């Protein structure tokens, strides 16, 4: 039997692994991937709660929005990373410690 708590556990695992990736990895692209994981855990939470608690489709719609936003965010983030790489020839996060070039 798949219950709400198993969804939440998966979601928690996703969130924590995203968080660890964001904090531990020095690669900016990896950090972006970590953000995707966190967003996905949030979307999974929405879907799980709307399936087991509300019994309607509003959570699903929010999940779809989150997927769209995640895609947009990934596009913007990768643009920034490309621009950063052009400037610094590096995608190491510690090279982005300064507010101006």
């Amino acid at each position, binding site marked *: 039997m798949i219950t709400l708590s198993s969804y939440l556990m998966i979601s928690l695992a996703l969130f924590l692994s995203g968080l660890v990736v*964001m*904090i*531990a990895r020095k690669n900016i692209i990896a950090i972006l991937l970590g953000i995707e994981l966190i967003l996905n855990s949030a979307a999974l939470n929405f879907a799980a709660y709307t399936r087991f608690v509300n019994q309607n489709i509003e959570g699903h719609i929010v999940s779809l929005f989150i997927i769209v936003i995640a895609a947009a965010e990934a596009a913007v983030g990768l643009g920034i990373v490309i621009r950063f790489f052009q400037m610094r020839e590096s995608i190491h*996060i510690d090279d*982005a*410690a300064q507010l101006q070039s």
Partner: protein
Amino acid sequence: MDYTIWTIAPIVLLPFFAFVINAFIVKKFTKLAVAISCAAILGSFGFATRIFSDFVFGKYAEDYHIHKVFNWFDLSYGSQIFKLDMGIYIDNMSAVMLFMVTGVASLIHIFSTYYMAEDKRFGRFFVYMSLFTSAMLGLVLSDNLLSVFIFWELMGFCSYSLIGFYYEKEGAGNASMKAFMTTRVGDVFFLLGILAIWSVVGNVTFVDIYRAISDGSFNSLYALGIPLATFAGFSIFMGTIGKSAQFPLQVWLPDAMFGPTPCSALIHAATMVAAGVYLSLRMYPLMEIGHLTTMIAYIGGITAFGAATIALVQTDIKAVLAYSTISQLGYMVLGVGVGSYNAAFMHLITHAVFKACLFLSAGSVIHSLHDHHTHEHVQEMPRMGGLRHKMPFTFWAMMFCTLAIAGVPFFSGFVSKDRILGDALLMALANKTYIVPMVLGFGGALLTAFYMFRMMFLTFFGEPRDKDLYDHTKKEKFSLNRNFPLLLLSVFTLGVFFSGSLTGQGFIKVASEKRYEWFKVLITKPKVEKFASYERQPWGHTDIKSNFQLSEAKYDYNYGLSAKEAHHIHHWHLIGALISIFIAFSGIFIAYMMYIKKAWNPGWWVSMFTRWYRALQNRYYFDDFYIGGLIKKGLLPFNNLLAFIDMGLYDRYAIDGWEKVNRAFYTVSGWFDNIFVDTIAVDGTGASVRLFNVVLRMIQSGKIQLYFMIIVFTLVGFIWTL
């Protein structure tokens, strides 16, 4: 006949603008600058002639004067009136004076174009001459004592620059300094007198002073226990003593001959020394109510006689003339002292004419005599002699002037000097205290005739004593700028231009005699009562003569006295005239016997009166007394005392002692400053800020993952505490 400001002011402004323009262009356009100066003074001569002819040849009017004023500044506050008017005041006396000054100055300017032409500072000389002349004209036109003082000082400056004109020469700089400092002594008193008058009258205009005198404002006012009128009059007369080189302060004038000769002519004749006498004539009513006339007569008499004695032994031709100037100024002051106002002024005018001519002639002589060994001009009379063959025009001009100054009848000097001496004789008869000045005056006349003819005989007569110098001297050819001024001036030494009666005593009646005694008619003592209801005109006012209700001045044959008294006066004037004619001719005779016939040996006198001779050569030790006694013994120790008080006491104890106190204080306060303020307060603040800064810098590192960590730990901690 109508006067606006634009027909009067140019008299002063033309030479002044010439000065201003020339000061800028003189280096590059010397010739043009000279031309501007001459043109300016001739222009102002034109304007002055107009005024002179209106006053003298027009209707004779005693009271006619032009007086225009404008408000210079007004500092009145409430009931405190403090305002100062400046203005132009022309009466008969100033009109005559203006004509004389501009005329004589014009001729001197013309002569200078000859005399100074080879000088390397040809142009600069004219710059100063223009300023000098304009200052004198301004003084004559002034209507109040303050502007008189301003122009007076301006003349002091110009005389300083002109006497020190040849500043390379040793002595010229000292002479200019001496002239400036000596006249300054008188000027300080003059300023004091102006202030004293201001304190009584509240104004320094001449007419207001006259009015105050007639009102009796000066009565029963005392300053330091002496009457204020006496104090003010004395102080102003001290100005005259300084400027006109009278007895105690005469030392500067003989040294003034270090300047170029035309400038000496200007100083001795038309401008500087005349200003002093002019001032004391203007302030005559004040001298009268201050009871100063006896003192003035004594000073005049002493100066007239003493300077004449010094002139006896001078060998420098200009020095003789310088001492004769002092002596003649003494006569003018004597005239003021004995109350012969008219004659004193007349002597001022006649003296200006013949002394200008004498100095210019001396300049002509000096300029011609050029020593080929030293390349200098010769001024010493022992090296001259027989020059009348070489310079006939100069000789005749100088001869006329010498006759005039010696007091030979039919010449101007006789007319004016004998009026003064006649009045002195009358005063001596009426009042015994005047006997001494009278005797000194007559004695001075004898000496004057003697030393002037001595000068003439030594210079122009006899055999040339320096043959080499004589042979190198060119024969004088008539040239316009050299001889014309001399001859024109010498014409005006004739007595007829000043008095119709030839003797100057008014004995000869001509059909309408007032025309022939224009000096006596026009120049009268200011009658102070007339100024009670006096009104002055504003600056832009046009004076039209017909607007004035004027009483025509009459030649009063009896001087306003009863017939008996007038007869008495005429009687004694005649006797005085006869005495002075006798004196003049005996002076000439002595000079003739000594220097032409050589019958009497002047050396005998020198050997008989050795000490006197030495005293005369040392100018009665006045210079020694002033420099050796007064300055070295009196002023210098006083100076040292003041220096000791200043340096030894004040500087040493007050200033240095205060320094020690300050040093102690600043050690304490410096320690406090270093320890408390700097170390603890200022550096402590900085250190605390730096401490926080280290912590904060650690947090704000820009490393994004650190921020994530902080956020996570914060959230975890937040959730944990829930």
